[in-house]
């Protein structure tokens, strides 16, 4: 079916920093750029009809400019611009299939960035009522936190009707204008200073022998599901008065150092950049890579965590940067990134060694993804209920060493927690 929607305004403008950064990653990963698609399933609260659900959906698109924004791609290969439409018509799939299966299906093909709306929607029906809304986002329109804002708003619209829509946060066009203005340039210069202090280094720069390379495709993902790792990370975070995210990033940097034998570990954490009032509630792609540097990464984890506090702050500051500055300045590109995708991080919590040891047998490892191209060589993702995955280019890190890396991460943290 087709759902018409209308917002307050339209217009065109340059891309925001976050849009530029993801566009660069998309271009480097194409034609496998469906890799960046992601989504959410919303269980519809109460009993809602098709009309009520599509009205809420239309209000959502009317509120958040990002969901009505597509790209203009210049024929000469120059920089894309963003084009906000005042209104339009969204094709929506009606289905009785399993919502998670629909999510996977809608994620599996790349977006048409110029012509397709950046949101794909399926409504799962049971007779006259809609039970689930499946939303798949183009990464140009939202990051994980942006998608969560959209899902929360849609839920409120379904609960309280279209009038419940909150006033929109800043739009991507507003943000692009601010970023190009004097205050944005000041912030960009501060971020640039952090990047410019980091010497060039590629972390995984040695080709592995032919015999060790995976069969095609060359990019694989290993995924570790480890309750013990989760408990250990919380225990270590509690001891060091820090977050599990910092603990995992620091442990990753330490193990990258162990794998590569380099003096300095340079890892690019994906930072949500929602520290500021104007970006906190935006449905948009605001996340960007920051630069996290640990010198002497062969020190013990205890020592490294003491240094990680200020290293993380510099990484956060570096993340809200202008990708055009980055390209012009030829900043460090270690091809090694870390992405904590958890919406709510379980806080630090003391855990007994016994409790952690008891959880070890529940650890499992799987290989959920493989493809030909990716814009990075080594990507650690943290998600769900502490699942850690490593997606790597097997020409630089063979599959057996990927598996080893994840198990070493578990061992390192379990040992650090005293278990």
């Amino acid at each position, binding site marked *: 079916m087709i759902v018409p929607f209308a917002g307050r305004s339209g217009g065109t403008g340059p891309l925001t920093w976050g849009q530029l950064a993801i566009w660069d990653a998309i271009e480097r990963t194409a034609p496998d750029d469906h890799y960046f698609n992601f989504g959410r399933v919303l269980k519809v609260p109460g009993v809602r009809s098709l009309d009520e659900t599509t009205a809420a959906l239309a209000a959502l698109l009317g509120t958040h400019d990002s969901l009505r924004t597509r790209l203009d791609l210049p024929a000469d290969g120059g920089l894309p611009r963003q084009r906000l439409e005042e209104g339009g018509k969204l094709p929506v799939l009606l289905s009785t299939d399993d919502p998670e299966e629909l999510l996977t299906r809608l994620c599996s093909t790349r977006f048409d960035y110029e012509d397709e709306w950046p949101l794909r929607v399926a409504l799962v029906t049971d007779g006259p009522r809609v039970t689930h809304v499946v939303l798949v986002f183009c990464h140009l329109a939202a990051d994980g936190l942006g998608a969560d804002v959209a899902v929360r708003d849609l839920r409120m619209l379904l609960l309280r009707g279209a009038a419940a829509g909150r006033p929109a946060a800043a739009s991507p066009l507003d943000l692009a204008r601010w970023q190009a203005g004097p205050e944005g340039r000041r912030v960009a210069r501060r971020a640039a200073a952090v990047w410019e202090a980091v010497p060039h280094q590629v972390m995984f720069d040695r080709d592995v022998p032919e015999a060790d390379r995976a069969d095609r495709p060359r990019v694989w993902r290993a995924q570790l599901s480890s309750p013990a790792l989760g408990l250990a990370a919380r225990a270590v975070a509690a001891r060091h008065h820090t977050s599990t995210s910092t603990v995992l990033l620091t442990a990753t940097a330490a193990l990258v150092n162990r794998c590569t034998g380099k003096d300095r570990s340079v890892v690019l954490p994906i930072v949500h950049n929602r520290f500021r009032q104007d970006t906190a509630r935006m449905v948009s792609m605001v996340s960007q890579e920051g630069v996290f540097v640990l010198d002497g990464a062969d020190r013990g984890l205890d020592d490294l965590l003491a240094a990680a506090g*200020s290293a993380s702050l510099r990484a956060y500051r570096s993340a809200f940067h202008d990708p055009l500055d980055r390209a012009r300045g030829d900043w460090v590109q270690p091809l090694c990134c870390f992405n904590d995708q958890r919406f709510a991080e379980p806080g630090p919590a003391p855990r007994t060694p016994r409790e952690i040891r008891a959880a070890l047998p529940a650890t499992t490892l799987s290989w959920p993804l493989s493809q030909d191209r990716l814009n990075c060589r080594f990507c650690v993702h943290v998600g769900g209920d502490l699942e850690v995955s490593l997606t790597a280019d097997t020409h630089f890190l063979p599959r057996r060493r990927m598996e080893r890396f994840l198990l070493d991460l578990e061992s390192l943290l379990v040992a650090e927690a005293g278990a």
Partner: protein
Amino acid sequence: MTRDEITQRLAELVAEASDGDIPAERARDAGVPLSVLGLTSLSRMRLIDAVESEFGVELDLGERDWTMLDDLGALADHLEHR
């Protein structure tokens, strides 16, 4: 601003940055580092942004300055003598 006024204002900014998780009185009077009070990295970045824009300073985020950024009293001293 006197040092006490600066400390009071910093404590209020901690409360705002932490969405009230760390009340201003606790930030001012606890006498322990902000990380021990549970200031998260998100809140810490909000706090740094707020301090920089309100006091018109740029804080160095180097390893040497970490202790200062974790200690309200030391931060107040720094702002008083800038």
